């Protein structure tokens, strides 16, 4: 075999080798794509099922709270009113019987109002701003602390799942503030910075060390829940300096 023949074989071999290499590369890419596509689909399904699970949990928690509230109302309010009505109606005096009838009417309207709370339809009829106002009014009415609410934008109509998560998260933050922080004031603010809408909840209570993981993993839950709807949460706090929480809403 002379040298030129050798070189010709090298050229033929190189051409075939390179062609084979390119074919293998492209086929491998298609296989990897298929594999990753399947993994991706699995991951998306998992995220979807987690999202649904979180929503279900939130709905259950809200229903649980509602039932507790209804139970309390039946015992403390409606029960009392019915007892009063029984007393009035049992009286021989016509004016007392009239008062008894009025008390029964009051009971009817209280029961109507209460029945509205039994399903989650109220979530759809209420805006986030209205919900925050209601919650802050409740806090103020108990005389627990002062509250303020400012909003430079309207959040508008949010999808039901986002609204449910936000309601639960806001409720949890306000409950935590009342249970653990003993603040003198709670301030809630809503604003928009560029495309990001933010709900800020600030209290001047005890505060806590954010570097220490809480036993109830409440902060982790808040973050996870906000992430479920494509949002985020940031918490700034230190002992003695209150707590500042930013809820970043999905765009």
């Amino acid at each position, binding site marked *: 075999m002379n040298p*030129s023949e050798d070189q*010709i074989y090298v*050229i033929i071999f190189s051409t075939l080798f390179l062609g084979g290499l*390119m074919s293998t590369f*492209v086929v491998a*890419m298609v296989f990897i*794509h298929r594999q*990753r*596509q399947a993994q991706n689909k699995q991951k998306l399904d998992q995220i979807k099922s987690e999202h649904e699970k979180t929503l279900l949990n939130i709905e259950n928690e809200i229903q649980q709270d509602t039932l507790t509230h209804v139970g309390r109302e039946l015992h403390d309010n409606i029960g009392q009113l019915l007892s009063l009505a029984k007393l009035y109606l049992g009286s021989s005096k016509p004016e007392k019987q009239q008062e008894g009838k009025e008390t029964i009417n009051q009971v009817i309207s209280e029961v109507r109002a209460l029945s509205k709370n039994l399903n989650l339809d109220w979530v759809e009829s209420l805006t986030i701003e209205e919900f925050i106002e209601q919650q802050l009014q409740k806090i103020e009415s108990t005389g627990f602390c002062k509250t303020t609410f400012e909003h430079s934008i309207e959040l508008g109509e949010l999808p039901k799942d986002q609204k449910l998560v936000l309601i639960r998260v806001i409720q949890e933050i306000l409950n935590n503030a009342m249970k653990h922080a003993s603040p003198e004031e709670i301030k809630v603010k809503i604003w928009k910075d560029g495309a990001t809408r933010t709900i800020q909840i600030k209290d001047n209570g005890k505060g806590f060390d954010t570097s220490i993981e809480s036993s109830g993993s409440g902060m982790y839950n808040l973050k996870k829940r906000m992430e479920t709807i494509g949002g985020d949460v940031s918490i700034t706090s230190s002992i003695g300096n209150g707590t500042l929480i930013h809820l970043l809403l999905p765009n």
Partner: protein
Amino acid sequence: MDRSIIEQFGSWYLIIIDSFLIIGSLIFFRLSKDRKTKIFYWLPYVILAFTVFYENLGAYTNYNLEFKKSVNALLGNTENPNYNLWVFNICFQQITTILYLLLIRNWLEPSKKKFINWMLLIFVFISFALQITGIEPLYLDQPIISAMGANMILIGSGLYFMGLITNQHYLETEPLRLISFWQMTFLLFTYSLTYISSVSYLYLYEFNPDLGQSISQIDMYMGIINIGILILIIASPLLPKVFLREPFYEPI
């Protein structure tokens, strides 16, 4: 009719690619005005028209030897006035490579486009420097420029395939129904095989012209397939059942 004209312009290869230009033009001019202004459609048409132009120019230089001789003399090549490598060097090695890099850039995810911008700058600068300094004259074989162009196309293809297996938009689609996938696959083959043939071309013609001829035919077949795919890109809006929408292509 002059026999030489039939010899030069009547080859099966030129007839096929000339027909492809006619078909491509008919399809392109049937596209809506909005689509015609989109780079996704006009760039493949420019590549198609330019490829057909330089292949015919190559044939013309073999028909009009005086013209070829005078261009060679202008470029300083008086030793081999019958060479028309300058057509291949300017049109395929340089301009077509730049056009294909732009086409690849079009298909990459936005974060990867900057790599192609840098490659384009480096390619233009080094090619210019190599030719100006006389290291690789325009009228002779240009292995460095050829290797550089082929490698850049291969890197561009690599970036595309990386995006294909990592980017969410590509993972949600079926690659075998993406016209970009087929174009990148055949560009990968064309440039790797053209590189081998271009570096061994002169050697093979001296020692084994038959093999040289066979290897150069690989370029022709790959060229025809690439032109065919360019036509399919232009025609893709007319074939919505065959091809899916490109993930990074902004719809009209």
